[in-house]
């Protein structure tokens, strides 16, 4: 066996050993608090809640993102919405009484505060602001763990913005 072959064999073994750590979150873009970015992969620590917000554009295009088929079925009552498109996703992990802010399309803003959680559900406060920075909605809800609630109806281009809010831990 030549020296080059031995070196190449060593490279292969090194890649195998390092594959687990290299492919992990160290190289994934960390989520920006209050902004977009890819979701974290690590599980939230004790008493923390991971909040995911998806910004969906409901319109009459007739095109439904495959990820939104369930949402389109829920909103079938709004017959004029034949198209659903994901504009952005936002995520953050919050400790009790910790807040985060997401900048949404249409110059809107959403603030989420995690108030508390127990085994079954998380209490969160959701505040939505209009393009003129006026508070449009302020609600405190308890959502079952792993479930999503729909907040929607905000004017955007030729349709509406729909915001599924999910909590997980």
């Amino acid at each position, binding site marked *: 066996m030549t020296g080059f072959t031995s070196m190449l064999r060593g490279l292969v073994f090194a890649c195998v050993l390092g594959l687990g750590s290299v492919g992990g979150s160290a190289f994934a873009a960390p989520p920006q608090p209050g902004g977009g970015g890819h979701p974290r992969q690590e599980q939230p620590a004790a008493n923390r809640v991971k909040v995911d917000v998806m910004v969906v554009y409901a319109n009459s295009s007739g095109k439904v993102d495959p*990820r939104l088929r369930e949402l389109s079925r829920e909103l079938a009552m709004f017959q004029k919405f034949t198209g659903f498109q994901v504009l952005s996703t936002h995520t953050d992990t919050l400790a009790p009484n910790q807040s985060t802010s997401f900048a949404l399309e249409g110059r809107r803003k959403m603030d989420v505060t995690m108030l508390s959680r127990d085994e079954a559900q998380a209490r969160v406060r959701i505040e939505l602001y209009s393009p003129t920075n006026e508070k449009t909605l302020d609600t405190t809800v308890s959502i*079952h763990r792993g479930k999503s609630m729909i907040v929607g109806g905000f004017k955007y281009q030729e349709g509406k913005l729909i915001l599924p809010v999910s909590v997980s831990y």
Partner: protein
Amino acid sequence: MSENLETLLERLRGGQVRPGDLERARELVAADARVPADLRAEVFRSVDDTEADAAGLLSVLGHDDLGQAIAEAVGAEAFGAADLVLDGGLDDGWEAIASVLVEGLRAEAEGFEVAEGVVRRLPVAAFAHGSLVGDAVSQEAGGVEVADAVSANLGMADGVLGQVAAAVRAEAGTVDVAAAVAEALGFAEVPVAAAVRAEMGRVDVVPGVLAAVGAWRAEASSSDRVPAPANAGSSRFGFAGFALAAAVLVSVIVGRLVIPVGGGATDGLVFAHAGEVVVEDLQYGADVQVIQTEGDEGAVILWVDEEA
């Protein structure tokens, strides 16, 4: 000849706007005591709102009925169709039992009193014992099955029992007892849909596949001894193999660097149904309306109407 306010408004509502009409309309509105003071300064400020302002003022002045127009607008906005029917009248024959039905349906079939209404609608000549049946059913909280036993004890003909059953069906219609049953069983809702969804997620076929492959391999190993590879000891092929393996591993590593692994908010939305979401507090701006409703498959929705 100068036209009065109503005539001018009707023309503007029809889209017939002439030069000077808006100014004339503002003058007439400002001088008309029938128009609320806070409205006089708001109308006809924008050409785009002319028709809408004219229609609204005609309604304020009592010269138009916007009921159907509003219904059409609401129907078009909420349901995409302008065929919203506003008909709150009762058919004749229903009035006698209307209150009975409403009360009974609201109680979700518990204590639903049908006896009185049912008995009233049966032919008197063929139902001589109607009052007895009605009292018996009333005492048994309106259970239809009790009517059969009572009727049997009274020796009533099958024809009458058939009439009772048909009358009960006609009056009670379809009563949803699922919610009451689920509540009695201790479920906030019957979690069938959630359970099915949880179970249908991923189907693991690996054990089955491996089991089949293992059986095949066991059969294959019982065959003749596999001869030694013909290329054993060739350094040229060994080098190519290592190079290929290294290239594959590098491509996998690079791929994982640029492609985020794992799911996020876009994967697997599972919507909370009533009972899984509690709106503890709700406040909203003065220029919006918010309604809490359920989607077509039960998801809880907070819908904000910014055009209210």
